[in-house]
């Protein structure tokens, strides 16, 4: 993201419409760019005012009482067209995708039918998992998460993603919600070099420059931060801001199977087609995701997301949670990053103050 054309990215950021790497890039950029923070605040304010106005505008209006009375006689003279004999958009799209999708759907159905019927619903799994996540966050300790994330930007369904090679990175994050402290260090899984750092010690924000996000970084910028702001970096166990909550609200569209994890333990797998709010096709691309839960503890173990173009399905995002634990509240964490070798911390004044 550059400062001379930030608005599209900032709207998408506000609307939770960025991929995790895009979002991380914007977040990192916001730490160091006072102009964009001001711009973001103004855009957010405008969005809220527009939203509020639209809702107020129609809050009191409603169809007339005799709307159905007027409509019903007209329906008697309008015969429904025979089902699927004329080209609606869904029919056209089905034809466009053709037999490939039919075969794929049939294969998925066959696989699904061979799985054991599961007495636990998707809603129950998501609710129980949300409950343990919430408990971990509120019980006062420090949440420690290690993940291995694969991301292929060119295979991702986003239209405006940044081209680039597929990469696997190792993420390690600590979150202390009671004291507004957090840090996330991202390393390349092959070289172990640090590619991105973002965090706060309660008084300062730490971040690497956005343009350094693709390669190794050695400089971390420290910016004074207001002490009363909410922690800006949530614990993310699955792809996408608020993705877990969205999935809970849409649980009826998830399919559950009970399977075995890579280490042999029993897991629940929740599969959703077109995870982006049930839209099957966008520009000829469909998406699907599988989220893995420990069948006993309901902890999230990982996620795989696929994009299908022209009948070819490609994994574009994969996340494996290697460690998910809550440390004691007094655990010694170097929130000022002094334990990380090979980096230099440079103080930056906050131009926005």
């Amino acid at each position, binding site marked *: 993201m550059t400062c001379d054309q930030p*608005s599209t990215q900032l709207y998408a950021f506000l609307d939770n419409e960025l991929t995790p790497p895009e979002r991380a890039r914007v977040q990192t950029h916001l730490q160091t760019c006072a102009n964009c923070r001001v711009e973001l605040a*103004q*855009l957010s304010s405008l969005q809220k005012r*527009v939203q509020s106005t639209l809702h107020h505008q129609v809050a009191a209006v409603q169809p007339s009482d005799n709307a159905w009375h007027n409509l019903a006689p007209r329906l008697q003279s309008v015969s429904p067209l025979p089902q699927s004999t004329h080209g609606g958009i869904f029919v056209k799209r089905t034809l466009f995708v053709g037999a490939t999708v039919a075969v794929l759907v049939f294969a998925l159905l066959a696989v699904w039918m061979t799985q054991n019927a599961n007495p636990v619903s998707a809603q129950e799994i998501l609710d129980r998992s949300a409950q343990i996540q919430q408990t971990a966050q509120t019980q006062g300790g420090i949440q420690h998460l290690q993940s291995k994330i694969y991301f292929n930007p060119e295979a991702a369904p986003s239209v405006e993603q940044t081209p680039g090679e597929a990469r696997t990175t190792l993420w390690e994050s600590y979150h202390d919600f009671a004291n507004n402290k957090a840090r996330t260090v991202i390393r390349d899984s092959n070289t172990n070099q640090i590619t991105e750092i973002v965090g706060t010690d309660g008084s300062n924000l730490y971040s690497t420059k956005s343009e350094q996000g693709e390669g190794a970084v050695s400089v971390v910028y420290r910016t004074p931060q207001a002490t009363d702001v909410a922690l800006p970096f949530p614990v993310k166990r699955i792809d996408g801001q608020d993705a877990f909550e969205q999935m809970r609200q849409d649980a009826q569209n998830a399919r559950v199977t009970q399977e075995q994890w890579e280490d042999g333990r029993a897991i629940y797998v929740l599969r959703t087609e077109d995870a982006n709010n049930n839209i*099957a096709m966008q520009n000829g691309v469909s998406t699907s995701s599988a989220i893995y839960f420990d069948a006993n503890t309901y902890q999230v173990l990982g996620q795989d997301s696929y994009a299908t173009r022209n009948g070819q399905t490609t994994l574009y995002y994969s996340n494996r949670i290697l460690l998910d634990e809550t440390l004691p509240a007094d655990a010694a964490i170097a929130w000022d990053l002094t334990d990380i070798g090979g980096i230099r911390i440079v103080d930056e004044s906050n131009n926005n103050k």
Partner: protein
Amino acid sequence: MNPIQRAQQGDPDAFAVLFEQYKNLVYKTAYLMLGSAADAEDALQEVFVRVHRSLGDYDPRKGAFTTWLYRVTLNYCLNHRRQWRFDLLSFNTLLKTPAAPKSGIDLAEEESIRQAIRALSDKLRAVVVLRYYSELSYSEISDILNIPLGTVKSRLDLAMKSLRHALAEPSDVCNPIKQEVYP
């Protein structure tokens, strides 16, 4: 069997249930798109006639019923001739709009925002309504309007820039509004 499936098989009672369940969605969306209760009432009738005629096209495996219903509604609205645009909107009205307060929502500001939204082109207003009233995702909007995801983003960006311009600089509002009203 749910009401949609029963309505697809010709059950008139099920269609009445669908109407009752979704009439507000259609009516309020049309109201925001077309700008008057009378036009919204007409839209409600015409949309449900089309729904009755074409319900066989709807395939639940391919998307939510509401997505399909939004598409029928927006197709009607985008093709409907909007007389109000020429009757009620004038540059004089816009120029007389007081400057919006810098913070908070009040009646004067809401009226300014309403007028600015109405002054948007149909295409821009559609993405604003779907995003900020219906609270749909970009991909849902893309599917409903049958436009690429990138076009959704660029239209939202353009719409919000127009609104921002209209609200922040009312005395200089002629050009962008003129461009949107008379494309």
